[in-house]
């Protein structure tokens, strides 16, 4: 049964999604942050974060998600992530003393690696989400014709 007033799937799916989407998001963030001491890391966590957004979009229709994160903003966030990674790499050879991606700061337990993980998580989650968005919006355009 489709609810005609509100886009998206049925009430059951929406209620369950309300509960789970946030949990999936938090689990993704957890995976990103513990990447340097165990299995996980930026890529895996980023994929999970993107999946939570995709989940929301499937359940509530695209407008709900697009209001918060549209394509242009996603592109900007993902390229910011990539730039941040490159800048972190350049931090290594400040003043041309050490090579690219060299460890400079001895903090926490793993140096810069957690920060790399976070940056990659941002890059991957937004990148994966905008690819999904691009494909979905492409078919949306075709249906309108």
């Amino acid at each position, binding site marked *: 049964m489709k609810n005609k007033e509100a886009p998206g799937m049925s009430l059951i799916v929406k209620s369950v999604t309300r509960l789970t989407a946030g949990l999936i998001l938090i689990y993704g963030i957890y995976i990103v942050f513990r990447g340097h001491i165990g299995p996980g890391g930026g890529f895996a966590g980023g994929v999970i974060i993107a999946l939570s957004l995709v989940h929301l979009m499937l359940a509530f229709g695209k407008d709900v998600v697009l209001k918060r994160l549209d394509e242009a903003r996603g592109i900007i966030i993902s390229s*910011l992530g990539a730039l941040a990674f490159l800048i972190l790499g350049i931090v290594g050879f400040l003043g041309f003393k050490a090579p690219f991606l060299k460890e400079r700061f001895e903090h926490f337990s793993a140096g810069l690696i957690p920060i790399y993980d976070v940056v990659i998580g941002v890059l991957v989650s937004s990148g994966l989400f905008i690819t999904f968005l691009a494909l979905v919006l492409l078919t949306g355009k075709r249906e309108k014709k």
Partner: protein
Amino acid sequence: MKLLIFFSLIPLFTAFLIVLLGRLRNQAVLLVTAMSVYLMKIVNASGVVIYKISGWSIPLGVCLVADGLTVFMLCIVNLVALLVIIYSCQYMRGFTDKWKFYSLFMLMLAGMNGIIISGDLFNLYIFLEVASIAAYALVAFGIEPEDLEASFKYAIMGAIASVFILLGIALLYSYTSTLNMADIALIVSGNPGSVLVSFVSVLFLAGFGLKAALVPFHAWLPDAHSSAPSPVSAMLSGVFVKTLGLYALSRVFFNLFSISSGKVFFALMFFGVLSMVVGALLAMAQTDIKRMLAYSTISQVGYIAFAFGVGTPLAIAGGLFHILNHAASKSLLFLNAGAIEHATGTRDINKLGGLNQKIPLVGFTSLFGSMSISGVPPFGGFWSKLMIITAAVQAGHIVFSIVAILVSVLTLVYYLKFQSFVFFGKLRSGMKEDLKSLHFGMKFSMVVLAVICLLTGMVFLPQLKLALDSAVNALLVGNGYGAAVIIQ
């Protein structure tokens, strides 16, 4: 050498910066210019230069290596990229979403520079994929049905080629337990004659041969090159095919496996000659300018592969020199084709004629390019073909050399046809007035490339000879590559 990493770092940085800044595309030009200036510092450095990423010692970490061949290829790629970007600043005005074009272009450039400087086999594969994916997207940039179909064909074939290369790398890793190219070279030379190495070299021949469009694998090239926007075709044909295909192939065969003679080289020679003949014959029949140029690319790539297959020092020098000549002249010709399309709106040579009266600059420069590529004496193409054919005769491949000479004549025939149909004769009635004028940037790039075509004819210029010699030596040392890298 601290500057080596910048060759792939600057284009990557620019690619993402353009996304953020959107309209400020002139920064791309400035950054590539800056990179070409950095280039001069490396040219002066002698010997093998190593850059260890993250400071790990050689067999453990990823390293970047610059020897003579690297420097030679880097000069060609970055010079052509700079000129093409200057050209496309004004050519791409008609397209929407220009920032996407520049961003993808920069990713492609980063990939190509990365392939050239990489000293690690898996890293080479990654950069190859970065360049290829950017190229798939660039071919489809116009979103016409033909563009999409060409891009789809190219993407499928390119993906299979990449998988073959990856399979080769995987098997090589299982044999040597290392990915560092220098280390692999040492280990392979330690136990020669392995069946696995022969198998891997066949896989690499298929993979890189598909990227280089040697003849049994050539089907994607004419479609992709004729569908892409002209600056992209100039990049693809001028440097992309050579970097992804021929450079990687020669690096792997000469330096990693150090095969001095044998069946693999005979296969390379055979496919080279086949590409020459088939490419030239198909190019004769084309009426679309860009398709003709694309088939001509297949033919000329055949010459280079043939030269590498002969494998004597003179032949390798000829092949590398032909890479330079072909990069300059074929980029020039594709830029000319773009200018013709920009001015008249068509690419069909039957609908064109007498353009020398209207856009004489394009006529002159394309005459330079055509003469260089078909091997007319004062230009560079003549010397490189002469070197290749002389070397082939010296090595005893008489039949192949005769074929090469005949193909050279064919090349001259179809370029003369192109010249006479497009630039000489009567001006078509529809084209009397409404020709769009060319912008300064476009003219500048074409003139510079034409001058390069003429300058490379002076093969005895000391700088050119020096660069060529060190590039040839880099290939000829064979396993010495491994030793030279490991020592540092």
